[in-house]
């Protein structure tokens, strides 16, 4: 089997680090990663606790296929109560850290309590220790990794760290691993910071065993052969999407005032891959996570003559560049068409540990507040926070990363920021989490997916894409969203990435890999029921945390202001019509609470 069958429990209050057996009954019901981590969290913690208190727990979770030979088998997740949303948070990352943790012998690491002083967690197989972090506290993610890499002199050691944003409790601080991959959303890095935990450093040589290695490898090879449509993703990355959403009128622009951005041709894959007027090309190469045969990551360089980095040679090297979501949030959402400025803001996100989607979404909200006069240069410390200003984007990103001046306000996230300045309707968020790069008017299914997602607005927890590109009619959308949410819950619990699904794999391919790696029989019915169980468990967490039907909604702009162009021209999101059908399909009552028979069917009562 591919579970390590053990967890590591780290109590930061007492300093105890204990290895415990994995609850295999739960593993068989929740698979791993997102599902299993959520199960542990709900079993062990009162969901009503303050997300930034010592009572909140941080679960670092791998899946059964993490660290195996399966393509994209490097995924890991952080499950906790999110400071941005006060809902369950599950933030998924790639890179090499997750596989290394699994290779060290652990399915999960449960971190609880709070350390009196800054510490980091050092794991080398069964050797586990909490170490004084005073030498790296206050340092960036990049500095931290460099210092610890030097200290241990082991190039294969992997790190997951917070930057100053996490230390300063930025509500959307992330945990960055391998320099530029991140458990990005919902503020999981702030939870780590609140516990005075700077880094998890891990080296593993235990390996991952399979019950039937020969059979498993045959499965891996057969499934790999079916990933036959990956060329576009390797070449253009997720940024490919920007021309699609812009064309159909679903690229949120200037805080969703518009749905099409006139500067898209300066941010798209062609712009990234073509020399600028100085002969500089942004894209250097692509990058891949552990075991990945796609390589969607962008490795980019900023033009060294660009104003953002002109006197900063530390930013002249290649690092993680713009993906679709960061190009949308740090570009179109702010009305900025300067690819180098957006790339620089993205570098800051990796360096200081911030979610680029929420950073961009919050800056966009602030720009609209500035535009309507709700905030002025007096509030911003003299900064003209105008839509379209690359200089403003760069400056406010630096201020937020370093928790300086008005940057402290931006670090609250758009929900808290807009409420403070009297315009909560200008936060383009759900449950406090900023929108991804899709507009719920032209993509009605995405609107429903945003509204119902357990961790707030997110584009990775449902798959209405094909349907939404096909039609703006809402018939059938509730079922598509519900069913894909369940399927993705399963994939997110396996240790695999979602992107093979856009490169040739079907759900059956994921299932075949899980069945090949795990004990027992995994068929399609079990897959779907496992996913549905996970979704409902997350919902239970949120209900116990105090969320309700009222949180399954969208900003007024999306519900009442029709889109002006594109396939959604003249439309608002018809959430009110889709939501009751969605609840019914889920087996929930009118208030969005799972009915007793639904809970019983899923073993959740």
């Amino acid at each position: 089997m591919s579970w390590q069958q053990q967890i590591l429990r780290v109590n930061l209050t007492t300093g105890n680090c204990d290895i415990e057996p994995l609850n295999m009954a739960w593993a068989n019901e929740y698979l791993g990663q997102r599902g299993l981590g959520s199960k542990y969290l709900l079993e062990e913690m009162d969901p009503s606790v303050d997300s930034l208190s010592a009572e909140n727990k941080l679960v670092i979770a791998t899946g059964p296929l993490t660290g195996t030979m399966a393509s994209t088998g490097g995924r890991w997740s952080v499950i906790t109560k999110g400071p941005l949303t006060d809902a369950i948070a599950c933030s998924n990352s790639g890179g090499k850290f997750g596989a290394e943790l699994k290779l060290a012998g652990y399915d999960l690491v449960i971190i609880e309590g709070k350390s009196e002083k800054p510490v980091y967690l050092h794991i080398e197989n069964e050797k586990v220790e909490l170490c004084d972090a005073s030498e790296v506290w206050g340092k960036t993610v990049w500095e931290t990794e460099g210092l610890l890499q030097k200290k241990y002199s082991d190039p294969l050691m992997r790190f997951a760290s917070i930057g100053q944003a996490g230390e300063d409790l930025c509500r959307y601080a992330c945990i960055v691993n391998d320099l530029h991959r991140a458990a990005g959303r919902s503020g999981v890095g702030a939870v780590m910071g609140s516990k005075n935990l700077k880094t998890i450093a891990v080296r593993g040589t235990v390996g991952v065993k399979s019950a039937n290695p020969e059979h498993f490898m045959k499965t891996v090879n057969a499934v790999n052969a079916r990933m036959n449509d990956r060329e576009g993703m390797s070449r253009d990355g997720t940024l490919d999407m920007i021309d699609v959403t812009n064309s159909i009128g679903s690229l949120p622009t200037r805080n969703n005032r518009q749905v099409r951005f006139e500067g898209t041709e300066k941010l798209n894959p062609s712009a990234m891959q073509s020399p600028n007027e100085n002969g500089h090309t942004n894209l250097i190469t692509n990058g891949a996570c552990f075991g990945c045969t796609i390589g969607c990551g962008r490795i980019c360089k900023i033009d060294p003559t660009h104003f953002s980095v002109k006197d900063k040679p530390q930013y002249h090297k290649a690092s993680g560049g713009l993906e679709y979501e960061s190009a949308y949030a740090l570009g179109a959402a702010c009305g900025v068409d300067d690819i180098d400025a957006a790339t620089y803001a993205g570098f800051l996100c990796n360096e200081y540990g911030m979610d680029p989607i929420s950073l961009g979404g919050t800056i966009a909200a602030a720009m609209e507040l500035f535009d309507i006069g709700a905030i002025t240069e007096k509030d911003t410390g003299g900064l003209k926070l105008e839509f379209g200003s690359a200089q403003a984007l760069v400056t406010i990103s630096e201020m937020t990363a370093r928790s300086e001046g008005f940057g402290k306000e931006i670090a609250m996230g758009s929900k808290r920021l807009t409420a403070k300045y009297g315009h909560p309707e200008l936060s383009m968020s759900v449950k406090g989490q900023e929108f991804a790069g899709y507009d719920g008017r032209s993509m009605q299914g995405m609107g429903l997916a945003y509204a119902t997602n357990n961790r707030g607005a997110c584009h990775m927890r449902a798959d209405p894409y094909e349907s939404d590109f096909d039609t703006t009619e809402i018939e059938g959308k509730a079922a598509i969203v519900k069913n894909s949410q369940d399927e993705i819950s399963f994939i997110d619990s396996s240790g695999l990435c979602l992107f093979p699904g856009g490169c040739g794999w079907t759900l059956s391919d994921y299932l075949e890999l899980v069945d090949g790696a795990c004990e027992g029989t995994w068929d399609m019915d079990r897959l779907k029921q496992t996913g549905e169980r996970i979704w409902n468990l997350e919902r239970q967490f949120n209900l116990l945390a105090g969320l309700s039907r009222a949180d399954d909604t969208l900003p007024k702009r999306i519900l009442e202001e029709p889109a002006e162009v594109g396939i959604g021209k003249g439309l608002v999101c018809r959430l009110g019509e889709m939501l009751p059908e969605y609840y019914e399909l889920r087996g929930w009552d009118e208030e969005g609470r799972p009915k007793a028979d639904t809970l019983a069917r899923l073993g959740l009562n």
Partner: protein
Amino acid sequence: MQVTIKVFGKLRHYMPAGNSAGNYPINFKLGETLEQLLTRLPLPKDRAYLVLHNDNKIDVEQLASTAISESDDIIVLAPVKGG
């Protein structure tokens, strides 16, 4: 007569090199339909495309009845999933 077609996404790489902006001028005769025009593009025939004509999505069955003119805005896309 000539109309410019925009080809985005994965499909861009099936088009002739040297046009990084995704704009492809193509000659057509009066009375030709969108279907006839698209057939002449060097794109794989076994894919589902999203076709936008003057900001309207055109279903497959509408292609043969959609007339074109020089000022038209035509976009051909291969939708991808986000991330």
